[in-house]
């Protein structure tokens, strides 16, 4: 027996063993907690991967900082200069990242003293939430497809279609307040769902791999958008460049804290979507089917499930969520269609889903983290003169470390988790 989880009882009449007594529940908890921290479980690896990415990012900041490099030339005569320059560079960058995304203590103090209006203190959080909402949607889209055993690379294209549909309703129709927003959001979801249906249907009918088809559909969606925004009736009157009309005010996602902060209803909808996806996966018959097909399509088929129907449904739901991501982008910060309106949220959604490890809650947390990085990047560029691209590097590093957990385990010398997959695979001879 390789692990304690294989319960093998005597073959005779099952004897009931006396329940194990736990004399020191409190100490037990502490040791369990320590064990959880030092073994390679998903949570620990994720946190350490983020930490490693920040460390490596710091190294990149250091070697690309002119001040630091200057001090290196006389490192051996005055090493303290180099160290303080390194501290300035890294601390400045990450400090600005933090101030731009969570809270700027200085502004907070000024707000307390009444020197600046209160909303300034909440501006960083507002920016983080604004950026996080679309990412949570696309992250959920990728997560949902992933649980059905598919890799939806097409969240980008589905988000584009969602934004287009929401935009056409937003500036094309003129409906009363509330109704206009509802119709625009529903149109956005439907646009994405329709675009997700295509690869799902192709896979179910012809076996075409969804990775290939969704990548191709991404190109088509991107070019469709480029073409659309310069058409008459869509292009903003009086403009020669590729930009559409402004969405009516009635169709915009309302700002949660008034005009002064950008944070809008999108983040609330994203949270609701996360709860809905969690419910769908765990508590609905459709989710049961979806998970069964994702884990073992052959057994699902043998038990009478329709695997192809499940693929199509999963891709439609996934596309719908990605479409909502595009909608949140358009009806939130963007307000008009441009070729770059999506801002890469589809592709970032893949990394968000990877970081979230296929779980809705994890996806929300990952979306918030990447939203914070996007929000902080602006401040970092302005204050510490580090290009926003640094954030892309950080995101990439985090995902690489998540994808290579063995690396993280080796660096931090984590103990192997009991009942690891490898051991189970090798003990198949049972």
């Amino acid at each position: 027996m390789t692990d304690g989880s294989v319960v093998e009882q005597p073959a005779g009449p099952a004897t009931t063993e006396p329940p194990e007594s736990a004399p020191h529940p409190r100490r037990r908890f502490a040791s369990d907690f320590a064990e959880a921290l030092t073994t390679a479980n998903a949570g620990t690896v994720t946190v350490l991967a983020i930490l490693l990415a920040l460390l490596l990012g710091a190294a990149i900041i250091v070697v690309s900082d002119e001040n630091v490099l200057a001090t290196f030339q006389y490192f051996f005569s005055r090493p303290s200069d180099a160290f303080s320059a390194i501290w300035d560079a890294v601390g400045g960058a990450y400090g600005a990242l933090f101030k731009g995304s969570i809270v700027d203590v200085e502004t907070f103090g000024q707000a307390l003293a009444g020197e600046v209006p209160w909303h300034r203190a909440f501006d960083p959080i507002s920016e983080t939430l604004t950026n996080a909402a679309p990412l949570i949607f696309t992250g959920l889209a990728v997560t949902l497809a992933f649980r059905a055993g598919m890799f939806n690379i097409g969240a980008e294209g589905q988000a584009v279609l969602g934004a287009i549909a929401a935009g056409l309703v937003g500036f094309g129709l003129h409906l009363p307040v509330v109704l206009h927003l509802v119709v625009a959001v529903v149109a956005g979801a439907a646009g994405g769902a329709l675009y997700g249906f295509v690869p799902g249907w192709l896979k179910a009918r012809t076996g075409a791999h969804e990775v290939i088809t969704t990548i191709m559909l991404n190109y088509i969606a991107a070019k469709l958008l480029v073409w659309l925004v310069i058409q008459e009736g869509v292009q903003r009157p009086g403009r020669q460049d590729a930009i559409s009309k402004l969405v009516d005010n009635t169709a915009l996602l309302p700002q949660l804290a008034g005009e002064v902060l950008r944070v809008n209803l999108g983040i609330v909808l994203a949270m609701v979507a996360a709860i809905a996806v969690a419910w769908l996966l765990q508590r609905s018959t459709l989710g049961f089917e979806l998970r069964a097909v994702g884990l073992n399509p052959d057994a699902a088929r043998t038990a009478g499930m329709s695997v192809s129907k499940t693929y199509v449904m999963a891709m439609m739901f996934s596309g719908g969520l990605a479409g909502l991501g595009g909608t949140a982008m358009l009806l939130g910060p963007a307000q008009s269609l441009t070729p770059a309106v999506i801002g890469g949220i589809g592709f970032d959604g893949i990394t968000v889903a990877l970081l979230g490890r296929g779980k809705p809650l994890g996806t929300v947390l990952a979306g918030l983290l990447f939203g914070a990085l996007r929000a902080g990047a602006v401040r970092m560029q302005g204050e510490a003169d580090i290009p926003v691209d640094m954030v892309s590097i950080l995101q990439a590093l985090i995902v690489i470390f998540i994808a290579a957990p063995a690396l993280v385990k080796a660096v931090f010398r984590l103990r192997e988790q009991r009942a690891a997959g490898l051991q189970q695979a090798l003990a198949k001879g049972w």
Partner: protein
Amino acid sequence: MEPGEIHALLGENGAGKSTLMNVLYGLLQPDEGEIVIDGQPRRIDTPAAAIAAGIGMVHQHFMLIDVFTVAENVMLGEEQVRSRALGWLDRRKANAAVKRISERYGLRVDPEAVVEELPVGVQQRVEIIKALRRDADLLILDEPTAVLTPGETEELLGVMRSLAEAGKSIVFITHKLKEVQAIADRVTVIRRGKVVGTTAPDVGEDELASMMVGRAVRLTVDKQPASPGAPVLEISGLRMVDDRGHRVVDGVDLVVRAGEVLGIAGVQGNGQSELVEAIMGLRPALSGSIRLDGQELLGRSTRQVLHGGVAYVPEDRSHDGIVRDFSVAENLVLDVFDQPPYASGLVLRPAEIRKAATQRIAEFDVRTSSADALVATLSGGNQQKVIVARELSRPVKLLVASQPTRGLDVGSMEFIHARVVDERDRGTAVLLVATELDEVFGLADRIAVMYRGRILGIVPPDTPRERVGLLMAGITEESEAPGGAA
């Protein structure tokens, strides 16, 4: 272990046989204790160390690259090169090496054949050659006969004998008592991770079995004579092709009556699997008809067939029968999860699912820590019980069981056999597909022998085994002795 000895390691599924051998081969590390080879305590922490110590292992699941030739697979890891700098492979030398080993030990195999085109038994020989090529003195064979036909098993036992004569020691892991008695010099029985005893193999099957299980077991199936009723399943003129377009089922006519077990005997790959898949709506047929109580099944979905009163125990348990990362409870409702009381509308009702699972676990004696445990953590026998429990929880007119006890330990096998007989006595028609003659003869009331997509004959279970064996090899009495007495 002594040189030239064949030592059988006998134990139920989950008794610790494979773990012990994985430790020996360096795949797992011991918590305590030591391994002594030739009087020296050795630390074996990787398979490479095991190979260096002269230990070779043939896994239950082959470690071969399907699209490479036999010789390429054998030289894998220590490739023969013509020129070191350019890395040209010397195929001729590799072929010669394979030929040398295969001739020396009677392991017939063509070095230039591509592995995926070889039958399972020959692939296994390649694995053995691989181990011998690296000068293994101790060979570990992990359940080598589980995947073999009776004929191939005989051949393997012959190979093992000639290896032993050449001075190689062999650890033979199995739970098949007959093979142990046929070949082993000594037997060690393991139960729940402990050595129960080491004996000579001639102590008798019953005693070995009770050592394995820890209590007396019945090796034969107790059953009353069948009282067949009306036909339930009628197959006529069924023709099918496989994925590559070969004709695999070629005009099969069969009738299974209520209250009887019809066993299909045959060497694997003679169309039995496809036939079963056609009944279950998993594979289309070219022509013919399959009727359940007079209703045509061809063209219906798997779901309609299942809910129309057919229970199905698939041949490949972990591939088609269970979702490994689902809980026991979830696996038990894989077919009815969306019907009341397990769901109302779109909403699952976990409490009901759990309640039903707890009941089934008790009824079918599934050994699991709880209904929420992942099925993957259960032993093979208990996984099979989960499948049987699920399938027999619907109203059933016909039970289709394909290799229902393959790879199972004695205790689980006994249980499954008893359930099949139970179902029969309740008036269910049973279609049993098996490659093990013991199982067919033990359970079936009539035996249909299938060969190359045809039913060569239907015989009663008191027919001599030799005759069924000949039919399985495609030899009918007519073709053997034309005009002879029937």
